[in-house]
């Protein structure tokens, strides 16, 4: 699935968060978005999922403009999925119900079929024994993996990940990142906002550095991390390195 973001702008109370942002993501490509907090990563992902309406510009999915008012957002969202920093599992449902709710209600899959498929996904990512647990009984890493499985149960062609490891204890980050690597190997198209530079360097096909609501610089990870061209990118990477994150 090919995603094109064309000069998108979004302001919250006169504060521009996206400012004419352009980004292209090809099918089966993994693009990591890096940049300081407030650079627009999260808003961009929400705009792509149509959770945040943009003020100007347009977003295309396989050549179709999805930001026009005639498009039913639920149709678009059924093709892509987003996973959030704070997991957002439904606390009143157990794991399997969390996973099967949307396939049953949105795609109209039968309960049996949805459960089978959910169980397959749980088994694939080492969560089979958590099937009947409620979210509060799971660790943060397990919750986030369940949240990703819930997104995958919709069989999305595009997966958006919004700092999915930022709320986790450092020891739990690894299990989530390895799940993402597995998805990349399976050919999933992904846009990943992340502060995990090492992960971005080894996993991404391309890394886009966001600054002031725009893609300031983008290239292959090796190139961007070793020879950043622009001053702001250099500054960001220097500060990240000083913080011991690279």
């Amino acid at each position, binding site marked *: 699935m090919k995603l094109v973001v064309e000069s998108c702008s979004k302001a919250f109370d006169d504060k521009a968060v996206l400012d004419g942002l352009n980004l292209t993501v090809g099918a089966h490509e993994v693009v990591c978005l890096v940049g300081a907090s407030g650079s627009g990563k999260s808003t961009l992902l929400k705009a792509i999922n149509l959770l945040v309406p943009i003020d100007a510009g347009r977003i295309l999915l396989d050549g179709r403009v999805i930001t026009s008012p005639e498009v039913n957002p639920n149709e678009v*969202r059924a093709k892509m999925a987003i996973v959030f920093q704070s997991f957002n599992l439904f606390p009143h449902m157990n794991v399997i119900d969390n996973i099967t709710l*949307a396939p049953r*209600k949105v795609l109209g899959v039968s309960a049996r079929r949805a459960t089978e498929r959910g169980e397959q996904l749980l088994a694939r990512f080492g969560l089979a024994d958590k099937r009947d647990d409620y979210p509060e009984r799971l660790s943060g890493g397990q919750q986030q993996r369940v949240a990703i499985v819930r997104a995958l149960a919709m069989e999305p062609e595009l997966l958006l990940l919004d700092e999915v490891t930022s709320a986790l204890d450092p020891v739990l980050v690894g299990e989530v990142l390895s799940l993402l690597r597995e998805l990349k190997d399976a050919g999933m198209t992904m846009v990943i906002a992340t502060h995990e530079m090492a992960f971005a360097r080894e996993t991404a096909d391309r890394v886009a550095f966001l600054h002031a609501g725009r893609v300031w610089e983008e290239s292959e990870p090796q190139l961007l991390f070793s020879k950043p061209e622009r001053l702001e990118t250099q500054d960001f990477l220097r500060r990240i390195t000083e913080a011991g994150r690279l």
Partner: protein
Amino acid sequence: MSWPSAPSTLGGRRDPDPGARRAREEGARGAFIAFLSTLVFVGLALWAILTSEAWPRVQQQFFNPEAFAEVWPAVISGFWLDVRMFLGAEVLILFFALVVAMARSLRGPAFFPIRALSVVFIDLIRGIPIILLILILGFGVPALDLPGVPRSPLFWGIAALVISYSAYTAEVYRAGIDSVPESQRMSARSLGLTQVQTLRYVLIPQAVRNVIPALLNGFVSLQKDVSLVFVLGVREGVREAQIFNARTFNYTGYIVAALLFLAVSIPVARFTDWYTERDRRRRQAMSA
């Protein structure tokens, strides 16, 4: 204050936590003192009342055994109607209020008329005294003599209660819906669920859990307010007591009715407190 204490082996039984045992002992002692002081207090109060000069007259008017025996069958059968009314009305209220709250919680310009309608309904109904609504519907609608419209004052009395309580209860539900984190709504919407599906499967189940104490409070209040339909001449508990009073000038019937209302409302009030406390502990345990 906590003392460093050696493990106690007295009595051959080791208490794993001497502090907890002391707390239990103090708790038992406290309960005993509370019981004793209550006994003394209530005893004195009763003695003061029963030995007062006016007591025989009060007893004659309000606590008369013969009057009690005479009025009991009528009041209890009237009260049974009250019970059926508040149980039936409560079911309808919980349903209609939820519909109104859902209508009010829909977002987006397309749903403006629905949202506006529910706001107007809530504002209008909450602004009218419930007794007025009962009079208007209970006497007014049957007087219209419309074909196909029920003419029973009982029907319209209950309808007035349901309408009035639905407006209040809708606000309770709405507070519950607003108390669910915005991220839950976003997460449900991102999975492709429609607004109504999001409300039904994600927001409302969590919202209801948050407002159960408030809903129970409303239920206690309704239990007593159903008796207001007596103004329509419906022979429920209060009306039966009134009829007896009009005939005998004795007030024992009212006391009987009061005791019956207390008998159902106190357990529900206690349950509400118990549930609220348990819920608070559960939340604390979860966030710990």
